[in-house]
Each structure stands twice: as C-alpha cells, then as structure tokens.
C-alpha cells in the first residue's frame, strides 16, 4: 500500500459507453502529503473537476482509485469536504443553519450540543462571518457566500479540503482577501488542500505544488511544479521576487506554449487572456 497520505493511483475516467464514450482522464497519478497545499491548473474542460470529484467520491474512477490515509475512497464523506464553485449554500437555511447542518451531522456522536454550537460559531468567526449568522444566502454578497461555504467545509474538520475554483466568481479585491484568509487558516490548522484554479497568480501564491494538466480528452498530469517560497507569503512582496516570477512564467509557458488549445475559437480567446494576464491578477478563463 501507499505510504503517502493521499494517493491518486492510475485513475482513468470514461464518460458514456459504446461509441459515445469519451476518455476524459487517462492514468492520473499523484501523491500528496499531509498538510500540503496542491493546486490543479489546466485549460477549461480538461478534467480538473473530474479529478476533484473522484477524490471527493462524487464520481467513481473507471480504472484505478484513490487512497486516503490508508483507506480506499469509494463514496463521498465528511472527511473530504468540498467547497463548490458556486458556494452551494442551501438558500432556505440561514448562514448559521447552513454550517450547523454540516456540523451537527459530522459531530453528532462526538460532540455535545453546546460544543457543536460553539464550534459553528468559531468556524464562522474564522471566515469573519459572525455578523451575519441569521442572514439567508440571498441576503449576503457573493464573497460572503463563498466564505460561508469555506466555513462549512472547514467546520467538518476534513482530512482533505477540496476547493473547486473557490474564488472563480469573485472580483479581484474580494478574491485577494479570501486568498489571504485561506492562507491564514491553513497556517493555523495545517489542513491538506487540493484547489482547482484558473488563476496563475493564485496558484503560485497559495500552493506548495502546482499540478498542471494536459488538454483533454485523455488528459493527464503534464508537469508538477514545486513552489519553494517561504510561508507566510505576502502578495505585495512576492510581486518583485524573481523566484515567484519564474514560477509564474513556468506555469504560463506550460499553459500557453506546451498545452495550447488547438480549437481556433477558444485559442483566440485564450491568447486574449494571456495579454490581459500580464497586467491583472483577475484573469479567469
């Protein structure tokens, strides 16, 4: 068996059957240590969410499998909580109740009602949402919703936290703010995180390693870049750091030179976004 904390071993994924079948993932192998922050980056539609959903147990691999802490993953569970791209809060529950649903289910047997209540409040405090406990998702901003989603996932004390483009739908300022918060939280509780992103800066800023995926179909891991920058990281200081810029350039080169999209329409869009990228951090394909 694998000695690694989380091992993705020879994962293949085929959607559909017969002549409609498309092989989305082919032979994906990745080993992750405890407390590592991994980013997955790759062009749209290459299969990043598919990888994450297989780790989450929401999808099952056609071949190969995922082993977490010595146990094979074959169904979703609270030890692998997910922050979904569109927050996925339940609109009929308040901020407090959304987190409470997760906490009360996960710690039903291990914590008393009082402890669970305190834990819910603490989790929401961690993302600075204590002021809106009784608000419904419709009454708070997009960034706040995403924060509650993160609080809900963190509150379950997962072994692995899975983030699917957690900041994708946010404006640059809110995004930077939440990135800082996630960095702080991770430093605090040393959680293992896998994050999907489209944003090169975000990947370099947050990760210990960046996993770059080749284009689909039959996508797999193309390169893995280890980010050797001391933590805690500061986005302003890093902006002039030659190492940081070299990492950025390497990811960009992988995405836009080695793994150029072939389709004319989408490649035109992509090259637009490269130009934009050099000036702004808020690029999201």
């Amino acid at each position, binding site marked *: 068996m694998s000695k690694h904390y989380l091992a993705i071993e020879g994962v293949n994924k085929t959607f559909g059957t017969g002549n409609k079948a498309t092989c989305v993932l082919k032979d994906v192998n990745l080993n992750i240590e405890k407390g590592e922050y991994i980013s997955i980056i790759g062009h749209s539609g290459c299969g990043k969410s598919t990888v994450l959903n297989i780790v989450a147990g*929401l999808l099952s691999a056609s071949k190969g499998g995922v082993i977490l802490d010595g146990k094979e993953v074959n169904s979703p569970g609270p030890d692998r909580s997910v922050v979904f791209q569109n927050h*996925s809060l339940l609109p009929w529950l308040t901020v407090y109740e959304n987190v409470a649903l997760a906490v009360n289910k996960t710690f039903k047997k291990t914590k008393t009602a009082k402890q669970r209540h305190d834990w819910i409040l603490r989790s929401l405090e961690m993302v600075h949402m204590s002021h809106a406990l009784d608000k419904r*998702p419709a009454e708070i901003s997009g960034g706040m919703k995403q924060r509650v989603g993160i609080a809900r996932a963190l509150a379950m004390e997962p072994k692995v936290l899975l983030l699917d483009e957690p900041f994708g739908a946010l404006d640059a300022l809110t995004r930077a703010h939440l990135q800082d918060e996630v960095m702080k939280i991770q430093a605090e509780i040393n959680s293992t995180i896998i994050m999907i992103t489209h944003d090169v800066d975000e990947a370099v800023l947050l990760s210990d390693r960046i996993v770059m995926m080749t284009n689909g179909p039959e996508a797999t891991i193309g390169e893995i870049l280890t980010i050797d920058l001391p933590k805690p990281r500061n986005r302003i200081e890093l902006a002039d750091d030659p190492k940081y810029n070299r990492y950025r350039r390497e990811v960009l080169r992988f995405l836009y030179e080695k793994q150029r999209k072939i389709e004319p329409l989408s490649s035109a869009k992509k090259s637009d976004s490269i130009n934009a990228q050099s000036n702004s951090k808020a690029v999201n394909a």
Partner: protein
Amino acid sequence: MTASTQPNLRKLTPVVQPSVIVKIGKTMKPWGDSFIKNVLPALIVGAIFLLIWEWMTSSASATLPAPSKVISDTWELIVNPFYNHGGTDVGMGWQILASLERVAYGYTLAVIAGISLGVLVGQSTWAMRGLDPIFQILRTVPPLAWLPISLAAFQDSNPSAIFVIFITAIWPIIINTSVGIRNIPEDYRNVSRVLSLNGYEYFVKIMLPAAAPYIFTGLRIGIGLSWLAIVAAEMLIGGVGIGFFIWDAWNASMISDIVLALIYVGVVGFLLDRFIGFISTLVTRGTSAQ
C-alpha cells in the same frame, strides 16, 4: 312584488356607496395613501359594475334580478347564515361549511397521495416512465366524468364527492412535486452526499425545502380546482352543500339566491387560494428566489 321593492331599494343603493367609501377612507388613513391607491380603484370599479348591473336589469322584462333586488330577496339568508330548519334547509354558512368539509377531506387526501406520488415519480426514473403516461392521460379527464364511476364504486354520494375532489386536485400536485424534485440542483444533492445525509435527512432537509416552491404551486392550483369541482359535483349528488343549494334554487326559480351563492362561492374560493398562498410564503420564506 317586483314593483313594490324596487323603488325604495333604488334609493338605498346610492346611500350605501358613499358611506362605504367615506368609512374606508377614514379607517385607511393610518396605512397611508398607497393603500387607498390600491383599494380605491377596486371600490370604484365595483361601484360602476353594480350601477351598470342595476341599470341593465332594472326594466320589468329583465330576466335576471338587479343587485338591489338580490339583496332584498335574500336578506333573510344574508342576516341568518346559520339557521337550521332541518334537512337541506339550513343557512348559507352551513352550506358553505358542508362543502368546505368535503373539500377538506378530498384535498387532504390529494395532498398526501399527490406529494408521495410526486416524490416517487421525481426520484425514480423507472417510476416516471411507468406512471407518467398514465398521469398524463388521466389528468385530462374532466372532474365530473369521474362522478358516475365513483358513485358506482362507493355506492354513496358523500364519498363520491370527496373522491371527485381528490382526483381533481391530485394531478397538479403530483406533476408539480415531481418537477420540483427533478429540478433540485445537482449541487444540493452533492452537498447532501458530502455530508453523508441519510435518506430521511435528505428528504426533510434538502428535498422538501428545495421542491417547496413547486409543491406549493401545485397545492395552489389543486385547491382552486377542488373548489371548482365541488360545486359541480354537489349539484349532482344533492344533500347539504353550496352546489346543491344552487341547483335547488334554480329548480325553485330563486335566481337571487343563486346570485348570492355565487358571491359566496367566489369569495370562499378566493380566500382558499389566499390561504394556501399565505402558507406558501410562510413555509418557503422567499427561498424560491435564487
């Protein structure tokens, strides 16, 4: 009779109208002008409608009674809604309550069965493929067409009427519930899977609230259809009830009674609809938005 009552009641109508407006104007003050803006148009249109009605039916050859005549003819019924002379000769209040009771039974059964079947059809593709064609055909059967067959089955008029209500109200409830369940976003299912909610928890905490706006749309359509059907069904089965009251009045040529009954039916139907709507906003608490 017509000649003697009409003149003094004509005097009555103009006197009633302004005093009503004045009174409402006074009591509405605290709620502000906007409320008056909302209520006043309805009052004015209502008054114009009554005047036109009065005018069109005031000639001696008119086949329908004027509003003033309706009031004078049915004055006994209006002021005594709860008299009881035995048999079917009871006040309008009792008639309406008898109809409401039938609707309550039939509708409650339809709610229970409709939501259950809707959940089944919404959850299981197999159940949908099997049941949906049957539902699509049966739901187009007019309510009254069910009456003979239910009379044959139950051999009694009251359960038959309840069955007609049931079968009328159930289709929109089933269909809306199943659509609501089928439309639960994949995200919510994923949330429940990550949290490892069990079947019961998923049903109560995710499925029902997520589908609630749809379910209540079905419930609201259902209550409206029930009330439509009960009047027609009662006309045929007899006994106490607003439907048979109308039929009885027609046989006795008491057109004014019919007009009064229609007003009752309309108002009660309106209140039923608002009642379900009220519960709906209470339960869904504006979550349908998003």
